[in-house]
């Protein structure tokens, strides 16, 4: 298990992504799987960095674990920001004409498509969003 906890600011975006990549790239040989995890991870991390703390500073902790019961990896994001359940976001209509497409909502949609199990909980004023991918 490895974790990284830093201030939830866009300045730390690269640090979070480098951490995620360094933890999984030796483990996962299939390029598409690796890419799916990196994209889903990016979307989840950016959501916290941009939206979790609208009025104050706060931190994001990312915890990465190899699963033991089945080959896979879990990425958990923990923040103390405003309550936000990504699983309750409405899916964008990807068949809508391009002129009518909202520019947002794609990130969560991609997370749902690319990962195998998602869970969210709100405990002790913390958001915990966990993403699991099997490979």
């Amino acid at each position: 298990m490895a974790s990284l906890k830093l201030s939830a600011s866009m300045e730390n975006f690269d640090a979070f992504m480098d951490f995620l990549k360094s933890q999984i790239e030796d483990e996962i040989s299939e390029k598409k799987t690796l890419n799916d995890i990196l994209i889903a991870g990016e979307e989840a991390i950016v959501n916290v960095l941009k939206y979790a703390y609208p009025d104050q500073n706060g931190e994001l902790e990312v915890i990465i674990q190899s699963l033991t019961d089945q080959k896979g990896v879990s990425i958990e994001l923990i923040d103390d920001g405003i309550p936000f359940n990504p699983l309750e976001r409405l899916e964008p209509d990807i068949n809508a004409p391009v002129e009518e497409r909202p520019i947002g909502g794609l990130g969560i949609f991609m997370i749902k498509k690319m990962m195998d199990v998602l869970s969210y909980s709100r405990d002790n004023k913390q958001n915990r969003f966990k993403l699991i991918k099997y490979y």
Partner: protein
Amino acid sequence: MESLFNIKIENGTAKITLSGRLDTSNAGALSDELKTLIGQDIQKVVFFVNDLEYISSAGLRVIIFAKQKIGTDTRVYLVGANSTILDVVKMTGMDNFLFIQDTYQD
């Protein structure tokens, strides 16, 4: 890995070469470049992506932006995408409005 982009405009066609990564950290810079095309009577926007390895939703939004804002009659091409990029494009339904080609033909 640095991502680089290069924009050339010839006869109403904007040719944009992307390489490396198009993600949250650099999509904004590309979006700013594309904004300069608004009102320039651009009929085609061609993204050459042979050397693009990674695209996240921030990158996809830039391509959607090209279609929505540069002009609704503007044709947007995606040329030379590898299978990873194509998977993401198809997953998000963007193949509905992009002209996807292996090599550029107008």
